């Protein structure tokens, strides 16, 4: 096949990874020194990596459900990109967790063989897919929070977690940018889109408090709570979008327990049923 020169430059043969982000590896941490540094609590580190990994896996699942349903083909590509980025983050974090807790569990063990109460994602990540306004609201909240967090995790005592965070920052900056721009277009678009965007925020907001409730594991690792940055970014975006911060009370915990403690919404069971169905139907299979 003869390739035009210009296109050859764009689609370099050596550049296989360009095709599928996060698909070009078996062991994401191969070659990296994965021993837990002295002074770092290995079980707390593993638990925390699982929390962050679950957030990414579960929200990525919701983004995957947008596939073939986006409002425009360009957004089809963008949403899939974000889903792929988060899936990649989940894989790295699961790999870290499996090393740090000494169990040697694989990414697939974590994703497909745990039961609901063992998942430690925040409830925001699992909210059932709504309309595009809700997607943008959840993505804006999620990516702003996670970016603020990752910007601090680059200083983590664990070099692996720090490296994962550094990689994630570039991705999350893009996700936040995508969400913020759409929030402004919808908020400052038509009367109807304004209404939908405001409603989307309304459905995400009750789960914001939970993002900043410091869990015992986070306390043990000294993970910061980036509430201030979150509030600043959100108020800036919402102002540009002519939207208002919803005045809704936070959704209560169950006996003090929320997503981080393995207590989820009713939507979570269905999500896992979908996610794990094939993997569980064929025990011992390799894919």
């Amino acid at each position: 096949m003869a390739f035009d020169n210009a296109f050859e430059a764009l689609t370099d043969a050596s550049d296989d990874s360009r095709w599928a982000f996060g698909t070009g590896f078996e062991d994401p941490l191969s070659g990296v020194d994965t021993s837990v540094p002295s002074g770092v609590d290995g079980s707390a580190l593993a638990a925390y990596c699982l929390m962050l990994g679950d957030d990414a896996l579960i929200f990525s699942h919701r983004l995957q459900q947008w596939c073939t349903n986006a409002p425009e083909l360009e957004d089809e590509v963008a949403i899939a990109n974000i889903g792929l980025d988060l899936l990649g983050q989940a894989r790295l974090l699961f790999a870290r967790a499996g090393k740090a807790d000494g169990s040697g569990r694989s990414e697939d063990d974590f994703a497909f063989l745990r039961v609901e109460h063992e998942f430690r994602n925040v409830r925001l990540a699992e909210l059932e897919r709504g309309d595009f306004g809700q997607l943008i609201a959840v993505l804006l909240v999620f990516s702003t929070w996670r970016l603020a967090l990752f910007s601090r995790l680059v200083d983590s005592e664990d070099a692996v977690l720090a490296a994962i965070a550094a990689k994630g920052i570039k991705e999350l900056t893009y996700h936040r940018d995508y969400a913020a721009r759409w929030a402004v277009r919808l908020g400052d678009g038509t009367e109807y889109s304004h209404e939908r965007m405001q409603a989307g925020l309304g459905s995400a907001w009750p789960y914001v408090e939970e993002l900043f409730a410091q869990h015992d594991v986070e306390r043990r690792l000294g993970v910061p709570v980036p509430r201030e940055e979150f509030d600043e970014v959100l108020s800036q975006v919402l102002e540009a979008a002519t939207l208002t911060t919803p005045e809704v009370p936070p959704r209560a915990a169950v006996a003090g327990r929320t997503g981080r403690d393995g207590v989820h919404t009713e939507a979570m069971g269905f999500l896992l049923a979908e996610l794990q169905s094939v993997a569980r139907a064929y025990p011992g299979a390799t894919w």
Partner: protein
Amino acid sequence: MIAALSEEDLERHFEHTLEKDQRIEPRDWVPDGYRKTMIRQIAQHAHSEIIGMQPEGNWITRAPSLRRKAILLAKVQDEAGHGLYLYSATETLGADRTDLTERLITGRQKYSSIFNYPTLTFADVGVIGWLVDGAAICNQVPLCRSSYGPYARAMIRICKEESFHQRQGFELLMTMMKGTAAQRDMVREAVNRWWWPSLMMFGPPDADSPNTAQSMAWKVKRHTNDELRQRFVDMSVPQAEVLGVTLPDPDLRWNADRGHYDFGELDWDEFKQVVSGNGPCNAERVEHRRKAHEDGEWVREAAAVHAARQKERQR
């Protein structure tokens, strides 16, 4: 000043460009029939990419490993990208994506009938990569030399990505064949379901393909349906052997005289049914696309209104 040229002069120049095997570019004069044929061909191809996202997209959330999930999501995303490259090629001919989408969701324009078959197990993801993408590559590699420049260039990018797609499909099937007995059964069952529909992807037999001669003359089609079908069969048989699956055709055997594999007659009645809209999933595929498009209307409108307002403010 440009001298007025007669239709014949323009036509002769167009023919001459084709004879020299040069590409036709967006602003060249072309006969109406050529423009019409190219828009039809490229739009149907674009629609096929977009509708083709559905049968595979169906399995993303259920993919049984995170690696397979990432590969499948990236693949389906590529298909959206391919659709966009192709719609943009039709726009160089004066078509309009909104209008073409309208034609797709009202059933006035077709897409490859293969996507009207259901995906029923995860093995289908592998078989689609191996057979369906394999057949698509057979069809598409010659199109990299299509006489219409923008289409040929889009096809170069697309073929490159399609070869990844085929490889991942084959690799998934290889892995499954080395797995449990249940996995092997799943692969064989999927191959049985997809083999004949894959052969139908090349279209009706040459004798029933009225547009082929003109398309060959215009160099927008480089080989006949039957030639490409034969090539695909010849390629697939040894691959099936490597995989350890039997293709579901008792008449399939090597013909030393022809230097090709002989194969059985396709079920052209089923083919006609699927093409005419009564395939297993035609209604669902179009309805799904229509719903996504209409659900997105308010979003697209909001963005346009916002952009217009911004422009107003800057003034």
